[in-house]
């Protein structure tokens, strides 16, 4: 069915919307986190169970994108009665169908706890995790079935595209995006409207728009969740962007490591073509545009735009000098606009609700919302979307629910490997581009790793440097050799072999790598080192001067000993020790043989009495 006019689309929207409200709806989370916890089994069980009670047609069962609260998955939400279940297993499904769906009775044990009050709550919105969020880009995530374009249309999808193509000129679209103050969500925060204007003005026989879906930060899954949960918002944004800059072709660059996102996109593209949103003369206008998927094969550096262009062209993904910028010379030499997944997904809603509405969200210089993947040593890990300007404290303590007791939060690593570690003392910092950059970190694409007091900051810096020396393309000397040398110096510190001169050298080297590297990867690679040096210098000094790891992490600098006064002689630690390093008899204090001990920490974990101590 080809949609040719806006009226035709509106009629379809109304029809779908009406059909949608008639049935009770069951939404099983099909995000990667919930799938890993068995939500596919839950879905299958729902299908058989609904057939058994004869409700297969009466209930609208959906496998949606990520709901957000990955920590408690698999998640299931119902519309009638409105209830939100967490930690659902396949065996819970018969009860949900029989009790909740058929009889309308809520199953208490599957409800989520409000950590503040300790009460069980029925709706998502009652949880602080959801209450403090502002879901703009993610508004349909967890609501619609991403494999069905009609779900998106029913909620007003592609209507904005129709309005843009029939009523606005490209210049007007660019002006609206400029007025909204939208800045790139990939990390650097370049104003999107300005980028489009430059691309529109650039001479070229044809132009390209590209969606950068090469999300490679450890622990980050924002772009993946958008692509998996609501691919049409990205596609609609790209079509509008293409119209604005005068592009006729578009490319969605997705990591090969995201098979679900690739599959969802393939389905979405086919459906968008079928409905006439891609192809020749879209909405009977003079504008034609089509999209293709390019799958990236596993290089972190391919997220850098010039490296991404090289990868799209079939070359090794290595960055080159800018200028010329991609808006001047991009794919195959043609002007190219490269925006991040989240940036594209913001476009339709800005045009739908107006630039003034968007500009009211956020701070003076950072508008709108930002998606973060909240991971690490925090109670509620998951996908969150917050208005810019929220403090780190609100994000970590309220939405994230704070540390897992008895531990305390010590720092957050924000912005991925190129970002920085910010200490608890800076938690009142508002989350916007300028504040984070000033503090030595960066917005990045939205990875947020929370660390507790059992995290060694030298070890963290070493971990990120190990990642970066491996992911550096190796083209330029400071990045290739500099990250490797920084890793060596940090390793020496973690092993107690370093001197004060090494610390000085590390600092000097980090500065030069930052200043002289060819691309963004190298220029930001020293950030983990520089920020930990800035905020946690005492930890470095403890490693170097006292040969001590304050957090008790660096194996070469710690020993496990048994506190004879606390040890009850329960022998619980004797059996799990892989080295048979623990000797002792029942009801007698045990002893660890330091010669045999490999410092794996299992005894520390199994001891119920806190008798195994790290010194």
């Amino acid at each position, binding site marked *: 069915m080809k949609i040719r006019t806006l009226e035709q689309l509106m009629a379809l929207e109304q029809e779908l919307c009406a059909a949608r409200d008639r049935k009770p709806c069951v939404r099983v989370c099909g995000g990667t986190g919930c799938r890993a916890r068995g939500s596919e089994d839950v879905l299958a069980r729902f299908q058989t169970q609904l057939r058994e009670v004869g409700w297969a047609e009466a209930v609208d069962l959906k496998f949606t994108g990520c709901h957000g609260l990955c920590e408690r998955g698999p998640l299931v939400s119902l519309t009638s009665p409105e209830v939100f279940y967490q930690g659902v297993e396949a065996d819970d499904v018969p009860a949900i169908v029989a009790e909740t769906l058929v009889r309308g009775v809520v199953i208490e044990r599957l409800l989520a706890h409000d950590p503040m009050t300790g009460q069980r709550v029925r709706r998502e919105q009652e949880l602080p995790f959801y209450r403090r969020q502002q879901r703009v880009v993610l508004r349909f995530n967890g609501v619609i079935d991403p494999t069905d374009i009609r779900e998106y249309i029913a909620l007003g999808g592609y209507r904005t595209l129709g309005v843009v193509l029939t009523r606005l000129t490209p210049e007007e679209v660019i002006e609206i995006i400029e007025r909204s103050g939208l800045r790139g969500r990939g990390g650097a925060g370049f104003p999107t409207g300005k980028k489009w204007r430059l691309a529109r003005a650039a001479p070229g026989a044809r132009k390209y728009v590209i969606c950068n879906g090469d999300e490679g930060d450890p622990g980050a899954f924002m772009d993946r969740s958008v692509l998996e949960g609501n691919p049409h918002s990205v596609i609609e944004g790209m079509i509008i962007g293409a119209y604005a800059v005068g592009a006729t072709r578009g490319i969605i660059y997705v990591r090969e490591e995201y098979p679900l996102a690739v599959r969802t996109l393939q389905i979405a593209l086919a459906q968008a073509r079928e409905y006439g949103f891609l192809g020749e003369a879209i909405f009977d206008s003079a504008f034609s545009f089509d999209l293709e998927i390019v799958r990236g094969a596993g*290089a972190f*550096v391919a997220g850098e735009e010039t490296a991404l262009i090289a990868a799209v062209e079939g070359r*090794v993904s290595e960055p*080159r*000098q800018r*200028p*010329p910028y991609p808006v001047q010379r991009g794919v195959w030499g043609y002007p190219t606009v490269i925006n991040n997944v989240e940036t594209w997904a913001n476009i339709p809603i800005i045009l739908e609700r107006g630039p003034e509405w968007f500009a009211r969200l956020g701070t003076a210089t950072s508008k709108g919302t930002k998606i973060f993947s909240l991971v690490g040593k925090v109670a509620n890990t998951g996908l969150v979307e917050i208005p810019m300007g929220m403090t780190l404290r609100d994000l970590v303590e309220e939405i994230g629910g704070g540390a897992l007791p008895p531990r305390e939060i010590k720092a957050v690593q924000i912005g991925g490997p190129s970002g920085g570690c910010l200490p608890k003392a800076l938690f009142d910092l508002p989350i916007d581009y300028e504040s984070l950059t000033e503090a030595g970190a960066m917005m990045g694409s939205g990875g947020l790793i929370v660390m507790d007091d059992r995290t060694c900051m030298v070890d963290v810096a070493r971990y990120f440097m190990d990642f*970066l*020396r*491996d*992911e*550096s*393309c*190796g*083209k*330029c*000397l*400071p990045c*290739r*050799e*500099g*990250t*490797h*040398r920084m890793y*060596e110096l940090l390793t020496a510190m973690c092993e107690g072999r370093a001197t004060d*001169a090494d610390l000085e*050298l590390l600092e*000097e*080297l980090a500065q*030069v790598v930052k*200043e*002289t*590297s*060819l691309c963004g990867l190298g220029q930001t690679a020293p950030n983990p080192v520089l920020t930990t040096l800035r905020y946690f210098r005492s930890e470095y000094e403890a490693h170097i001067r006292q040969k001590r790891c304050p957090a008790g992490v660096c194996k070469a600098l710690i020993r496990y000993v048994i506190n004879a006064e606390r040890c009850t002689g329960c022998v619980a630690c004797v059996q799990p020790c892989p080295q048979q390093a623990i000797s002792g008899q029942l009801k007698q204090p045990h002893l660890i043989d330091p010669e045999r001990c490999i410092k794996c920490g299992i005894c520390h974990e199994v001891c119920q009495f806190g008798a195994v101590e790290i010194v």
Partner: protein
Amino acid sequence: MTKLYINGIEVEIEQGASLLEAAQQLGIEIPTLCFHPGLSAYGACRLCVVELGDGRLVSACTYPAQEGLRVRTHSPRVRRARRMLIELLLSICPSSKRLQDLAAEHQVERVRFAVRDERCILCGLCVRMCAEQMMAHAIGFVNRGYRRRITTPFDLRSDACRRCGGCLYICPVCEVRCQGVGAPSAVCGSCTPPAPTCPPVYEDLACYMGATGECGTCVRGPRTPDSHSPTVAGRREKV
């Protein structure tokens, strides 16, 4: 023509020229290593970094001259950065004469990193030489990051390689890399100055690399005047 200022001096240069060319026009010397006028600019060694008016350090060999740009070629930041880069280079190629000279020029007096003698700084001159001047594309980079190295596809002796020796000729650091006949490396295993030995014997072969030793001329060295095969006098003997 583009007008810009280098170290405060006004210079006009044609559109599309690099900052390095503009500096050269003024006679300002900027150290380079991965740059060669006969090859495309690559911007990998970063030795030619210069400071722009906005405080950024960029490589002069790849950065295009822009109208009104202000460039400083020897600011304290630039010199400090260059010294660190040379120290890094020396730590992987300590025996290179070229790098030692650079170190002396820039007062780099010590190497504080653990030295690894790799005899390759991955400047990519050989790869570009092979591709752009010899049209062979016989060698290239493999792996990334700290595992990056230069070799032939699958580490096998490549048919695309004509043993021209261009890679050895252009290499700034591997003067001492000679591994002799039957070297284990797939990339030209030796570092002999590339003057042909074979043409006097087989005019069409020019096999002074790789296949060396097959006819024996180069290996045995100069013959006696009564020998039936002609030789080139004064050749360095290599066995």
